[in-house]
């Protein structure tokens, strides 16, 4: 069975035109023309992770974890293996869904083992190989170690220990040759991390319309509206002071932590919820439901103090890492808790200057963007989508997920 005949999830391009379309149709590639020549998929992925794509820096591979096709093959299998959770229901890919920009369009915040609530939105893992700090709160610094916490977090994959996972892998005949090929050694925790890190560093894609325009010299790559949006991004809206664009490449993040007032605002709403909740019951049908009804079936919502939960420094309350904006049109919903459904909502939040909050970053201020300017800024964000996303998703689906 081919990859595309099995897929329950339609490709990115298909999803965007269905009734549940999360955003505007963006530039996408045709999966049927994804590269297929010259060796295996993992060799092509290896070549990609060692090359420099237009608009991106070179992938920074750790000195002690040089990539190989064998590590990438193993890392992909681990990433999609649902047996890595305590009850065989969760893998990395259940929250970082390839066809959904390696994020999740269908939930504001993630759901883990036994349906347990995660308080944050699943970020895309595309281009995370370039980041120095990981997670919304920067709690880890390396792809080689970040996987451990999701493995054992009770509300994610819920394993009682990492040792249990390693022991499981050691007992699986299918994994023995893969670890042997990648490391010449049996499964271990650090080897799992190296394989997962090597695989995730292949999930890189540049070459967006913006890249072709800004770095490639193609003056026709952006529309007039997108060009105006770029100017707004740089100057009037000052987005670029945090979502940085450098001379040679752009990750669209300073990799720093900022208090935009959004986290504080969400905490105020958590403490003082509205008396009703607007609930969609069918396409274009909504009802306002009393808070008491919703509360009767709700676990208490969790507070989120952002970076403070890592540092315990009061000054870090409600600070979150600046997200990279590449492919941002392909990763709704937005913000650390996914409460903003589309790019327009995000722009409007910043245009209004965020809530009046004493610890807020002074750069968050009313922007006075007018209607056409908002359109232009949104158009520019659409220009950050790489044409290779569908091919990354297709490559990721080279084999079916592992199940018991």
């Amino acid at each position, binding site marked *: 069975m081919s990859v595309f005949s099995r897929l329950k999830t339609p490709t990115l391009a298909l999803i965007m035109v269905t009734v*549940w379309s999360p955003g505007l149709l963006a530039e996408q590639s045709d999966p049927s023309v994804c590269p297929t020549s010259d060796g295996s998929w993992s060799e092509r992925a290896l070549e990609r992770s060692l090359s420099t794509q237009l608009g991106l820096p070179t992938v920074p591979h750790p000195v002690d974890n040089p990539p190989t096709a064998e590590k990438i093959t193993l890392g992909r299998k681990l990433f999609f293996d649902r047996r890595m959770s305590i009850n065989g229901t969760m893998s990395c890919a259940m929250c970082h869904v390839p066809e959904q920009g390696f994020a999740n369009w269908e939930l504001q915040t993630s*759901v883990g083992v036994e349906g347990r609530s995660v308080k944050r939105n699943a970020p895309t893992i595309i281009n995370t190989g370039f980041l120095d700090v990981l997670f919304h709160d920067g709690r880890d610094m390396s792809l080689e170690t970040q996987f451990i916490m999701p493995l054992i977090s009770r509300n994610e994959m819920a394993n009682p220990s990492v040792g249990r996972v390693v022991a499981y892998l050691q007992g699986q005949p299918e994994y023995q040759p893969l670890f042997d090929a990648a490391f010449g050694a049996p499964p271990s925790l650090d080897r799992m991390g190296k394989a997962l890190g090597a695989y995730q560093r292949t999930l890189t894609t540049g070459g967006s319309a913006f890249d072709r325009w800004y770095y490639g010299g193609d003056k026709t790559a952006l529309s007039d509206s997108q060009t105006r949006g770029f100017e707004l991004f740089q100057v009037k809206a000052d987005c670029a002071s945090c979502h940085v664009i450098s001379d040679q490449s752009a990750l669209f993040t300073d990799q720093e932590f900022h208090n935009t007032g959004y986290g504080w605002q969400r905490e105020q709403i958590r403490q003082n919820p509205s008396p009703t909740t607007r609930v969609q019951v069918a396409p274009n049908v909504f009802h306002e439901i009393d808070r008491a009804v919703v509360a*009767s079936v709700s676990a208490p919502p969790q507070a989120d103090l952002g970076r403070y939960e890592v540092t315990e420094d009061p000054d870090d309350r409600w600070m979150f890492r600046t997200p990279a904006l590449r492919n941002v049109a392909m990763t709704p919903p937005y913000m650390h808790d996914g409460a903003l459904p589309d790019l327009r909502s995000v722009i409007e939040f910043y245009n209004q200057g965020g809530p009046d909050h004493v610890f807020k970053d002074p750069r968050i201020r009313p922007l006075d963007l007018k209607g056409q300017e908002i359109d232009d800024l949104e158009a520019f964000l659409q220009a950050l989508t790489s044409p290779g996303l569908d091919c990354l998703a297709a490559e990721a689906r080279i084999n079916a997920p592992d199940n018991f």
Partner: protein
Amino acid sequence: MKRRQFGALATAALVMGGPLRALADETCQSPYMPKITGHEEYVYIWTLGVEGMGDGQDKMVTVDLRPGSETRGQVINSLSIGGRNEAHHAGFSADRRYLWAGGLDTNRIFIFDVHSDPANPVLHKTIDTFVKDADGPVGPHTFFALPGRMMITALSNDDDHGGRTALVEYTDEGDFVETHWMPTAENMRGAEAVDGAVADGFGYDVRALIRKNVMLTSSFTGWSNYMMDFGQMLGDSEAMKRFGSTIVQWDLHTRQPKKVFNVPGAPLEIRFPWGPNANYAFSTTALTSQLWLIHEDDAGEWQAKAVADIGDPTKIPLPVDISLAADDQTLWINTFLDGMTRLFDVSDPHHPKQIYEKKIASQVNMVSQSWDGNRIYFTSSLLANWDKKGADDQQYLKAFTWNGSELVPDFELDFYELQLGRAHLMRFGSSELYSA
């Protein structure tokens, strides 16, 4: 079918020894199954384990219903099966010797032997490989008996835990046969979309009308939604976009999807009547709180239309289980959020009318009635993370007698007080089935 027609049919069936020879069985079962003769003797309750309560495991609980028994109305057996699997629905095999019960979370299927000792079911076999067998469907839900086969609806998939899913067929022995993916807008699999329906590929229930070669499936939501905290989901605008809006008509024998109907708001249970000329089925939509009729028109084409509101739809009472009387005249409809049961007169299926209502508890989910309609049983749990919190999280089996005008309490069991867990699906058992 009118009551007198049903009476004549039942009498004729008794004489002929046909499928309606029984007079006291739960309705709404697969028509391929034998019926219980006499009074239902046991009710098997597929019960969700609760962390920190008792052994914390899912279990099949057996309650004695035998008239005159010293243990009538009591739990006489509880069989824990290991883990919390999101125990949900269950269905007998066509020979009614085995009860298949599914876990919506872990995808495990537990096959209980209920014929060797109907008072004490034992675990006969566990299928741990449902997702791998079927190549992707997640969340085994309805178990609908076909001759020698078990047709299972799934609710989700292992790609993204969304709602796209399939029907999966096993032999009675528990061997995988085939996966039938639901039609989607991108791949209609030969089906036709009716009245602007957008084939969502979602699944929930399956029922069949054999003499018309019609099988119907309904559509709920994927794992991410049915597993998550209910209140969190109601506030998640993305999650709330992802509920089914379709009922699909299939060719029962070829498993070919024929039509996709537009039924917005998550149509759940499907019930065909028993009458020989009753060419229709009922379903209810959970979110839009409507009773729907899927019926054959004068031209022989099947259609779908809403025929009644259930409670006040703007308050989202959340219709859940339904139970159609064996004479096809009345339909019990439970609504989870207000804890109500409502009885509808459906003698004219195109114009149902509510004729009775009663609050059962703070929450109510399943309803099962005896074949004669005199005994009505209710249980409480919808889904582990959708059930109410705190004091409103009442978990029970409640038995009532229906005297024609009101529900009269018979007995009730508090499943939390008994340290059992969350009471969900009920199926009736009887030793009389296996005595020949």
